C-alpha cells in the first residue's frame, strides 16, 4: 500500500512536449510509472518517448478512461487553464510541477478542485513517489527506497535529503509527497497527514516545513489526533526577518509564518521536532520502538 499513487495508477502528462516534461516522462517511464498519454494543444498525434500526445485532456481520457492522475508541466501563464482542464475532464489527482503560478489563479483553482473532490498537489512541487511502484514528477529515483515512513515536505530538495537521510539509516518510504514551494498550494500538510494516518503501509510520518505561509500551523491540531508518530523539521530558524528568501512562499509574514511559530504549534500538538536531518532516523526509531 501507499498513498495517492501505486503500481496500478494510470497517469497522463500535460505539457508533455516541453523540454523538462519530455525528459522526465522518460525517467518516469523508466521507473515503471504507467503513463498512458500526454497532452499538448496543437501537437496531437505526435509521440514523446513512445507516448501518444493528444490535443486535449478530454480526448486523451476518451482513449484512456482509466487514467486518474495528471502531472502539469506547462508555463505558469497556462497552469490555471491546464489544471481546470484536468479537473473538468475527470482527473482525480493533479500534480502541478509548474512554479510561480499567480496567487489569484491558485485560489480559483483550489475552489474548483475542492468542489469536485479533486486533489491538486503543488504548484511548484517536485511531485510524489511511492518507491518501487510509481513516480509522478521529477524526484530523483536514487534517493527513495520502499519502506514504511511517509514523508511530506514543501521544498523539493528537502524531500530528497529527507529520504536520503532515512535511507542511509535503513528506513524507506511508503510514499513521499512534495507539497510545493508556491505561496498558495492545493493539498496542504493536513490533507496528506490524513492519508498517511489511514494508510496501513505507513508507520510514521516525517514532515518538513519552512518559514512563510500558515500550512504548518493549520496542520498542527490534526497531529494531536493522529495515532502515528510525526517528526517535524522546520527550515528558516536562522533566516533574517524581513528578508525575502527566494520563492514567495518563504516571506516571513506576521507572527504566524515564523519558524518559531511553526515549531511551537507543531510541538504543542505532539510532533517531535528535529533540529537536523541526520537526527530524524534516531527520533523515529525511538518512537517506533
Amino acid at each position, binding site marked *: 500500500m501507499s498513498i495517492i499513487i501505486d503500481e496500478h495508477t494510470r497517469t497522463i502528462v500535460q505539457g508533455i512536449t516541453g523540454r*523538462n516534461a519530455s*525528459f*522526465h516522462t522518460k*525517467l518516469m517511464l523508466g521507473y515503471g510509472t504507467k503513463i498512458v498519454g500526454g497532452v499538448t494543444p496543437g501537437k496531437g498525434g505526435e509521440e514523446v518517448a513512445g507516448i501518444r500526445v493528444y490535443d486535449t485532456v478530454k480526448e486523451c481520457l476518451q482513449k484512456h478512461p482509466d487514467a486518474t492522475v495528471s502531472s502539469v508541466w506547462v508555463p*505558469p*501563464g497556462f497552469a490555471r487553464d491546464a489544471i481546470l482542464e484536468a479537473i473538468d475532464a475527470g482527473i482525480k489527482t493533479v500534480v502541478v*510541477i509548474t*512554479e*510561480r503560478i*499567480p*496567487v*489569484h*489563479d491558485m*485560489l480559483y483553482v*483550489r*475552489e*474548483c478542485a475542492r468542489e469536485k473532490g479533486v486533489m491538486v498537489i503543488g504548484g*511548484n512541487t*517536485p511531485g510524489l513517489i511511492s518507491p518501487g511502484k510509481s513516480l509522478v*514528477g*521529477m*524526484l*530523483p529515483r*536514487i*534517493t527513495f527506497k520502499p519502506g514504511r515512513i511517509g514523508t511530506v*515536505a*514543501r*521544498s*523539493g*530538495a*528537502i524531500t*530528497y*535529503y529527507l529520504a*536520503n*537521510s532515512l535511507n*542511509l539509516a535503513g528506513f524507506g518510504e511508503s510514499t513521499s509527497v512534495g507539497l510545493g*514551494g*508556491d*505561496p*498558495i498550494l492545493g493539498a496542504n500538510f493536513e490533507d496528506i497527514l490524513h492519508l498517511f494516518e489511514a494508510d496501513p503501509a505507513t508507520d510514521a510520518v516525517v514532515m518538513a516545513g*519552512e518559514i512563510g505561509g500558515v500550512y504548518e500551523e*493549520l496542520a498542527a491540531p490534526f497531529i494531536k489526533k493522529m495515532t502515528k508518530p510525526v517528526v517535524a*523539521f522546520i*527550515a*528558516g*530558524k*536562522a*533566516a*533574517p526577518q*524581513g*528578508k*525575502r*528568501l*527566494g*520563492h*514567495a512562499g*518563504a516571506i516571513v509574514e506576521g507572527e504566524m509564518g515564523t519558524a518559531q511559530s511553526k515549531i511551537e504549534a507543531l510541538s504543542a500538538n505532539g510532533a517531535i521536532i528535529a*533540529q*537536523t*536531518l541526520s537526527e530524524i532516523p534516531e527520533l523515529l526509531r525511538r518512537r517506533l520502538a
Partner: protein
Amino acid sequence: MRLYEFEAKRLFRRFRIPVLDAVVVDGINEEELNKITYPVVVKAQTFLGGRGKAGLIKTAETRQEVESVIKEIIGESHGPYRIEKVLIEKKIDIAKELYLSVIIDRLEHKFCVITCSRGGVDIEEIARQSPELIHKYYFNASVRFSQFSARTIANGLGLSGSMLKSGAEVVYKLFNLFIGFDCKLAEINPLVITQDKKIYALDAKVDLDEDAMFRHPELKELGIQTRHEIGELTEREKLAKAAGIPYVDLDGDIGVFPGGAGFGIAAIDLIKHYGGSAANFMDSGGAPTQEKLRKMLGLLIDNPKVKAIFGARFGGISRCDDWAKALVQYVIENRPEKPMIMRMAGNMEEEGRRVLKEAKEKHPELFKNIKVYSVTTPIEEVIKETIRVAKAGRI
C-alpha cells in the same frame, strides 16, 4: 512587490478611485512646483509606515516653505530606505478618517475586505486594542464581487445617505483594482471624508503578485517596474538580480550554492547549527541553465568574505550533468582558489560524475581544492566538512 504611494495612486486613478491632485518631485523641480496651490502636504515616498511620526510628512503654506521641506526630506533615511521622492498634495479639511483594504487571507484561502471606522492610524494596533472596530468580509475567488457587497461594507463603516453611495463606489473599485492587477494587498489608510462631503484615498498601499506581472504589461505604461521590495540592495544583490538569481547577502563566511530555495534556507540553519555561518542565501530556481549556474558560482567566488563554498545538487528537475558541466567550465575559465566542498546526487548523476572525472584528470591542479561527495555521504557531514575548511582556510 510593494509600490510607492505615488505609484499605487496611479493604479487608483486608472480605476477612478478618487485621489487628490498631486505632483511628485525628486528635488526642486520648477515646472512641477509651479502647478501647486497652497497649502500643501509633502509626503516622503517610502515603503515603511509611520511616516508622520518620523517627521516625513510636513505641511507647507508657501513656495519658500515647500522648497525648504523638500530639501529637508529628500535624502533622509527611513529604516533601510533613503528618501528619493516626495509626493505633494493639496491640504484638505478632513471630517472623518476610515480604514479600507483588500487582502488575501491565506488561512481561509479567500479574498478578504477589512474595514475600520478609525483610519489614519496603525491598523494592527487597533486590531489588538479594539478588535470590535474591525470588520472582515470574505469572498471566494470564483464569485463575482457585487455592488451590494460594496454597499454592505460601506454600511458597516457607518456611512449613510450620499456617503453610502460614494463609499460603496470606492469599495467596489478597490476590489476590482485588487482583482484587475493581481494584488496581494490593496489598502487605503486613511480613506477620508472632507468637511464638504467628498471622499478621497489619502494614502495608497498596493502589493502586487510578482508571479502575475507577466500579464500586466499595463504596469509598464504606468511607469512601474519590477524591483526588489524590502530594503536597499547590496552591490552583489544588484548583480544577482540583474542575472535573475534570488540572492541575499548574509554576514558569514561560507558561500552557499544550493539547489532549491527550501534547502537553501535549511542549509543556513544547518551551517549555524554546526557552528558555522552562511555568507548568503541563494536559489537556483526550477531548472537553471549552465550559464546561470556559472553566474551563481561567480557571485560566491568573487565575494571576499567567503572563505569556503558549500555546494549541494540533488538532481530533480535540475540535472546533475548540467550542474557538473557548469562547474567544470567555470573552474577552467576562472581558476578559482577558494575551497569548494560539494555533494552531487540525483537525476543524471552518473553522467555528471563522468564529466567531473574527465575534467579532473585533464586539469588536476584546478580541482585540488574541490571535493564532490556522493549520495552515500550524509549532507550534514558535507556541511561539517565545509565549516572545518572555512575555519582552517584550506582543505
